């Protein structure tokens, strides 16, 4: 049982780390602001989400698990709102993005 839980942790945390890599590489390599924003949201939503998913089996208590999930939900809410506002800034501000 514990082996299965550890396997799940390893798989999900690795996948989360991969999305962080993807987000960072996108932030560095993509040509303009809106595409970079697209890359960022991947790290935000999927990266954090998969890390949380991977840590759920290790949480130990129901309360710990609920807190983990609420952190992810907060991250989703913040990411969605902030990227909307950034995209508006990019569109209105400067010349062509």
């Amino acid at each position, binding site marked *: 049982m514990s082996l299965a839980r*550890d396997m799940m*942790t*390893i798989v999900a*945390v*690795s996948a*989360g*780390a991969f999305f*962080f*890599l993807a*987000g*960072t*590489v996108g*932030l*560095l390599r993509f040509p303009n*602001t809106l595409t*970079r*924003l697209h890359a*960022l949201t991947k*790290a*935000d939503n999927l*990266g*954090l989400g998969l*890390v*949380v998913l991977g*840590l759920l089996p*290790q949480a*130990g*208590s129901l309360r*710990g698990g609920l*807190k*983990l999930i*609420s*952190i992810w939900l*907060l*991250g989703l*809410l*913040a*990411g969605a*709102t*902030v*990227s909307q*506002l*950034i995209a*508006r*800034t*990019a569109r*209105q*501000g*400067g010349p062509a*993005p």
Partner: protein
Amino acid sequence: MTEFLTAAVGFILAMLALGLVSILRGPGDADRMMAAQLIGTAGIAVLLLLGTIAGVPAAIDVALTLALLATFASIAFVKKGLSRFEADGAGSTEDK
């Protein structure tokens, strides 16, 4: 298990450092805001992993605090960034 999680923390931390490079280069404010957002998210992930490694359940509370305050800071960043283009505040930027 601990070794794997520590390696994952190191990896995400390295990604965070790369995100900082993007702050350094970022041509515009929008890029700086994005990098700040990425740093917040990666910081939360690192905190959660660190708490699990060290067996400190209270690290989750720190992550929760950070999630709320990072959101607040990001909104403040965006508002101040917007006020460069607008006369004051985000008055008319919220177009319908």
